[in-house]
Each structure stands twice: as structure tokens, then as C-alpha cells.
């Protein structure tokens, strides 16, 4: 797998899923993620694995509930408006503690919107669109290489915590290609023999369901889930810092847009303005503590997103007192151009009278 290849983000995800041991794919075509299903439909037939082009997105995600309940690694991929259809099943998967890996290659919304790329599903992914007290782990890649690496991580974390994981990819990253060397899956297998529905034979029978009429038992179940979420928050927060150490301004951004933001940092560094980038790689759990730590000495933050300020709320929650955050954003379509970001930051620098300009 080590030769360098020109790969689309979508294909990197599909290849990594197979390498991670994915045995089933359920989906329904939708731009801009259709290449995942297209690629797997061919490859999984060759490998004699389970590929189902479902009758609907609701069918697809519910098939994954069934597959993962038997301990089979399963992948579901779709895009924004169709991910909305899957929210009920995600809530069930969280309650049933099923390790579904769901890829959302985001397009424009709300409603049907259009196929233009966007980062508009941050809220849906991180807060959750289903009912009840639950969380899904949300990973956010910013390059094709990370699309593969985070697919590995998604399968691993889903198994480790028996929890659904969303790989939140922007449409631009899903469609673009770059040269990558795919590495092998670095994560160990997790033993799931204690809970999967594998046929009782000589052991006690098991059942997996979220219905619980006994009030005390239901409370306990939710408290147990909550304790698990706390564990995830403690162990799995991941982020990247770029030129942050001596920075006087910090940009926060996620996904492929964060990459463009690095060039904004480079641009200003040449002019003597020390700008750095803080990029959450896990959107849930969000790196509140790490960002908060940065804001103890740096007071000017600029959040840049391809939506109208969804991660902005989490950035605000993270910042310690005295630090303030401005926002640059655009809802959908062509990514913010370098010139647009530079212009936006130019104004913020003036407002804050940053000394070195």
C-alpha cells in the first residue's frame, strides 16, 4: 500500500475502510460522496464482502445497526440532507452502543440546498440531531491523507467505545485529489466477544435494544453512557497547532479550510505579524481546555468557517476571560479565497491595533 497515488478524499476513505477491516457497506448515492459507494461496489464484490445499495438512507443506516450488532465492521456514507434522515438511527446506535462509522461529505443546506461544498453540518454532527442524551465522536480531516488516517481512527474509536463515529468531511475535500502514500491501519483490534450477537450456543442469550420501561434502569443506562462520554472527552481530544507558540493572533478553523488558513499565517508572518492556527481534529470532543489555555496569553482570535459561525460557539465557550473572537465566514460554494481571508484579518488587525503592523 506504500506507493504514492493520486487519490480523491472519497477514495482514500473507501480504501482505508477496507484496510481497517470493514466488511459491510450500506449507502445510497448522493453527490459529493458517491465515489465512496462506487469504489466499494466494485472492490467489495471482488473481496466477497457485503455491499448494499439500499432503498433509502434510512434503510442504509438501519442495516448498519444490524450488522454492527453482530460485531461486523460496517461503513455508511452519505451527505448532509440525507444524513438528516439518519439521525433517528444514530440516536438508537448511541443508546444501543453500536460501533457504526458514518461518513458525512458535506454539501450545502439547509433543506435540500445543493451540491456545493460546505461546512454547514458542524452543529448537527457535534450537538446531534437525534433525541436524548447522547454524543457521537466527530473527526474532521483536512487533507486526503487525513481522510485515510481518520477513517482508521473512526473504526478504532467506534470499537473501543462502542459508539457511533462521524467522519465529517467537506465536499471540497471529498472531491479533490492529491498525492498520498496510504499507510497500514495502525490501530489494534478490539475484543468484542463480550457483547456481540453471535449466536448463544452455550452461553446466556443477549439482546440489544434501547427500549427500557424501568425508570431506574433507564436512568442508570444514561448515566453509564454519560460516564463513557466523559472518558472519551478525557482521552481522545485531538488538535493541531500551527505557529501558535509566539502568536499574537490565533485563527481557529477546521477541515480543508484550515489548510488554507495556514497560508494566511505564512502571509502575515512575512509581514511581521505573528499569526498562528488552532485546528480541532476532533470536533466532539472539542479541545476546550487546550484552546482555553492558549487564550490565557493570547487575546485575539479569528474563527474562519464555511458556514455562518457554527464552531464559533465552541470557540467562545473555550476562551478565557479577556480574549475575544471575530468571525470570517461564507455559507456555501467556492472556498473563501486567500485574498478574502487576508482582507478580513486586515480589518481585525486594525480594530485591535496589533502593534507590529
Amino acid at each position: 500500500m506504500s506507493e504514492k497515488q493520486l487519490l480523491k478524499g472519497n477514495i482514500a476513505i473507501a480504501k482505508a475502510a477496507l484496510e481497517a477491516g470493514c466488511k459491510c457497506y450500506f449507502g445510497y448515492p448522493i453527490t459529493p460522496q458517491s465515489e465512496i459507494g462506487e469504489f466499494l461496489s466494485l472492490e467489495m464484490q471482488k473481496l466477497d464482502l457485503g455491499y448494499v445499495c439500499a432503498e433509502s438512507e434510512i434503510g442504509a443506516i438501519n442495516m448498519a445497526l444490524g450488522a454492527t450488532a453482530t460485531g461486523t465492521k460496517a461503513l455508511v456514507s452519505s451527505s448532509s440532507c440525507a444524513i438528516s434522515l439518519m439521525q433517528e438511527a444514530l440516536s438508537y446506535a448511541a443508546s444501543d452502543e453500536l460501533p457504526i462509522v458514518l461518513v458525512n461529505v458535506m454539501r450545502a443546506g439547509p433543506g435540500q440546498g445543493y451540491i456545493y461544498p460546505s461546512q454547514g453540518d458542524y452543529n448537527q454532527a457535534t450537538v446531534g440531531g437525534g433525541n436524548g442524551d447522547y454524543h457521537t465522536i466527530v473527526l474532521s480531516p483536512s487533507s486526503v491523507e487525513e481522510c485515510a488516517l481518520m477513517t482508521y481512527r473512526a473504526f478504532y474509536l467506534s470499537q473501543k467505545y462502542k459508539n457511533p463515529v462521524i467522519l465529517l468531511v467537506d465536499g471540497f475535500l471529498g472531491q479533490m485529489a492529491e498525492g498520498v502514500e496510504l499507510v497500514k491501519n495502525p490501530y489494534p483490534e478490539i475484543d468484542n466477544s463480550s457483547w456481540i450477537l453471535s449466536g448463544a450456543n452455550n452461553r446466556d442469550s443477549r439482546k440489544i435494544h434501547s427500549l427500557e420501561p424501568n425508570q431506574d434502569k433507564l436512568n442508570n443506562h444514561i448515566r453509564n453512557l454519560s460516564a463513557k462520554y466523559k472518558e472519551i472527552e478525557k482521552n481522545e481530544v485531538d488538535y493541531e497547532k500551527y505557529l501558535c507558540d509566539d502568536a499574537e493572533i490565533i485563527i481557529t478553523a477546521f477541515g480543508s479550510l484550515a489548510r488554507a488558513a495556514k497560508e494566511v499565517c505564512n502571509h502575515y508572518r512575512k509581514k511581521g505579524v505573528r499569526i498562528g492556527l488552532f485546528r480541532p481534529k476532533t470536533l466532539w470532543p472539542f479541545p476546550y481546555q487546550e484552546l482555553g489555555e492558549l487564550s490565557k496569553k493570547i487575546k485575539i482570535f479569528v474563527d474562519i468557517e464555511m458556514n455562518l459561525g457554527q464552531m464559533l460557539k465552541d470557540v467562545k465557550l473555550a476562551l478565557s476571560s479577556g480574549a475575544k473572537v471575530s468571525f470570517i465566514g461564507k455559507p456555501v460554494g467556492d472556498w473563501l479565497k486567500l485574498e478574502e481571508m487576508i482582507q478580513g484579518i486586515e480589518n481585525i488587525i486594525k480594530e485591535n491595533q496589533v502593534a507590529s503592523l
Partner: protein
Amino acid sequence: MTTKNFIISGAGGQGVLSLGVALANIFMIADKFVSFCPCYGAEMRGGAVNCEVNVSDNELFILQNSKADFVVAMNQLSFDKFISKVKENGTIIVNSSLAKINKTRDDIKYIFVPLTQEALKLGNIKTANSIALGILSGLLGNILFDNVKKIYKKALKDKTELLQKNLDAYLLGFKYIKEKECV
């Protein structure tokens, strides 16, 4: 070469995306950082299609640029649409078989070549994109023919006749730009 940006544009079926993919692959195996970004969506044979290719010695951060060093326009529609996207002192290669020779800017270099007619002369209209790649290669001067062969072989696999036609087309474009004064 530090960073070079390319926009390839034309009609679906003219090999616009294939040309972009080949260009990115050729530089990738020459150990450059490359990115390939297609327009996507409800595209179809005959409809407008374009892609952006970026090539650099350094890691690429900006993958969508407002302007490009080189634009290839395979028909009138894409010529009209992308003429404004050529950087100052940049170059546009226009398929003059399907677009009128018309110079509206004096800060860029125009290269008009009847790509479709030349491809027909070679015996396969589908090779027009390879002629364009040959022209790009002639202008850039840092593409190894061995790498072109490698990538073409990989893409066309056992279609040996088509492979040879495309390599001929590539060389025709390469020589065209070296030998002829292009209007």
C-alpha cells in the same frame, strides 16, 4: 518551479479531467506536491467542465486559487469564462478549432492551436487533450517524457493503439510549441 496553478476547461467528453489527472500524476511521480480539484455536480457529456491543478516544490495549503498561471480552454465557452482567470503574465492555450481567435488582454500570452483539427489529422479526436498537454510541457520545460509514458500506460493499460496515438499527440504538441509561431 515554486508553485504553478493550472485551470483546464472545456466540454464534458473532451478529456478535460483526464488531462488534469494526467498532469497531476506526472508531477506527482516527479516528487512534487500536487492537488487536483474538479468542478463537480450535474456535469454531463457536452456540458461545461473544468478542473484546477496545483503543483509545488512545497506543501500546498491553498487548493482553490482565484487565478492561474496556465489556462487551457478547449472550447469557446471555457475561453470566455476563464480568460479573466489568467494571471498577469500568465498563458492561455486555446483550442482555435472550437473558439474564435480574439485577444482582449495585452498582459497575458495567447497560444491558439487548432487542437481538434490536429487530433483529427492524427486519426482520433479524443487526443486533443494530449496535444494540449504536449504544449504545456513544451512551455514548462520540466516534464520528463518517460514520466508521461508511465502515466499514460497506467491510464490506458492494454489499449496499445490509443496509447500510441496519445503519445504521438503529446509529442506533436510539444514540437508544435517549439517550432511554430502560434497565432
